[in-house]
């Protein structure tokens, strides 16, 4: 199947679509012409280094910011024009939770229900309790919010999105501040929601965690969407690397024979090296190494993790884009 077919299919059944979306802050272009397509039913990992424009994009999707150019559609309805009609189907945690510090967790949720015109008051209390239960906050429901720990606050933010069924859930850094247990629970929660048919967008830079739950990823870098594909495609598109380790005295011979095969081992004279193997079959490499008299200590194929791909695509530099 060609790339174009893929793209067309995705757009046709996309829950979120943007075309040429641009948002500037002064001179800075925080979101620079992105064409996002989040397939229905997917768990879409929205990745990118700090300041790459993830949160800004999410705020645009939710109608919290106005776009400078481009279009946004949620469920094929234009945003912000149809926001009033579409947003009841969407739950979101954007840039951390926000609640009244002097109200309890439960009272804060009740407040949200009270001002939500589509929220049925007859079942409000029950749904509130269930949402708190789902994030493990039942015991702390009556505590004032300012006594909550960072992770409890984050959990309450997620509970607020779970008080009713949603077609789309947007979670901006949902595991920020959560303990490993909490992180795992959120991951399981996302799996459950995914199984129920909810489309989930998770922004994060904790890649290992996204990797485990996502079906699709979009990678942002300096305001641009530099990759957008299914996890399967992303994995197969990346060539695996061979890790070769030989004894010190046969290092030169090994490097020479690898170079002759057209492979470029990394480093210069270390006895262990990483080789991007391309089309060359592994047995051929092994035979050539042995034939050249290299004493092999280890030979293993490494599938690049999302982190490798991420760094490869976004550049390894640590500084955020100003």
């Amino acid at each position, binding site marked *: 199947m060609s790339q174009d077919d893929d793209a067309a299919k995705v757009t046709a059944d996309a829950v979120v679509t943007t075309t040429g979306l641009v948002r500037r802050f002064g001179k800075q272009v925080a979101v620079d012409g992105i064409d996002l397509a989040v397939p229905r039913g997917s768990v879409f990992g929205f990745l990118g280094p700090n300041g790459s424009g993830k949160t800004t994009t999410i*705020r645009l999707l*939710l*109608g*919290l*910011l*106005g776009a400078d150019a481009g279009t946004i559609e949620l469920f094929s309805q234009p945003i912000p024009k149809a*926001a*009033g*009609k579409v*947003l*009841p*189907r*969407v739950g*979101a945690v*954007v*840039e*951390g*939770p*926000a*609640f*009244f*510090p*002097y109200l309890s967790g439960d009272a804060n949720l*009740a*407040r*949200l229900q*009270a*001002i*939500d*015109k*589509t*929220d*049925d*008051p007859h079942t409000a209390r029950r749904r509130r309790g269930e949402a708190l239960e789902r994030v493990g906050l039942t015991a702390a429901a009556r505590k004032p919010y300012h006594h909550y720990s960072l992770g409890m606050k984050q959990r309450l933010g997620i509970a*607020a999105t779970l008080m*009713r*069924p*949603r*077609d789309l859930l947007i979670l901006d850094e949902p595991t920020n501040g959560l303990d490993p247990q909490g992180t795992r629970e959120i991951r399981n929660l996302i799996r459950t929601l995914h199984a*129920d*048919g*909810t489309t989930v967008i998770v922004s994060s830079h904790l890649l290992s965690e996204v990797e485990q739950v996502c079906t699709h990823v979009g990678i942002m870098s300096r305001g641009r969407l530099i990759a957008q594909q299914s996890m399967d495609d992303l994995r197969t598109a990346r060539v695996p690397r061979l890790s070769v380790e030989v004894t010190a005295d046969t290092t030169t011979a090994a490097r020479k024979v690898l170079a002759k095969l057209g492979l470029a081992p990394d480093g210069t004279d270390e006895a262990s090296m990483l080789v991007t193997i391309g089309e060359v079959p592994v047995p051929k490499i092994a035979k050539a190494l042995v034939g050249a008299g290299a004493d092999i200590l280890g030979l293993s194929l490494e599938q690049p993790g999302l982190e490798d791909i991420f760094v490869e695509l976004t550049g390894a530099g640590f500084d955020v884009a100003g």
Partner: protein
Amino acid sequence: MSQVENFDAVPGALWRAIGSEIGLVLRRRRNQVLLAGLAALPIVIGLAVKLVSSHTDGGVGLITKITNSGLFLAAVVFVVSMPLFLPLVISVVAGDALAAETQLGTTRYAMILPVSRTKWLGMKAVGLVVFVIAGVATVLVVSLVVGFALFGVSDMTLLSGDTIGPWAGVGRIALMSVYVVASEMGMVAVGLFISSLTDVPIVAMAGTAIVPAVCTVLLAVPQLQAIQPGLLTYHWLDLTTFLFAQPDVALIRQGLLVQLAWVAVFGSLAWARVASTDVKA
């Protein structure tokens, strides 16, 4: 297929939202402390007058009238709080209204529920009006109780010299309190507008509190006579007209019109701000 069955507004949704806002304002500890502060005013003034009047006799003005009828205590407390304490208290609560939610970030979560911007501003305004009513009602009730307790119930000799019965007196004081509530509506609108400009509540509070002070200063500049009748505070102290046998209806009407104008102007400005801007933070 949508899992979400119902996008329609639930009946009574608007009332629930307004009720929630009123609950938030009135149950907030800080606001209760402000109300308690207002309640302390009649007590302090009442006791002071009681102590002073037992040493001296005679004297002039409104304050000495308190010793004749406890009803005048409420009048005096209104005159004192109208230009000073009430605007200050309102500045705190109104300045907080939008700015605090923006600062906390709760605004963005309200917007994505979604709550329409107009409803958002409307429920904030209703919450504030209810708070003003609560403040004035607190002053009224505590003044009457303290006035009766310290100075007794008797006929009220009005500023025009006429005497009316205690019930008619209570009626006058009640009318006065309604005028006080109405006279602070401009403050509510100004406060909401300033609150929509910033996400730092204390700045909005200070900014709002300065407005009546500036008006008072402008009232002292003779060259500004032309604009003075339109100033927020111009008719505030006209509430004493209720202490005459024939209150000056024209004056009251002008006072109310000035408030209406300020509400219209600053209400519109606040609405334009809330409806058009990006939701910050």
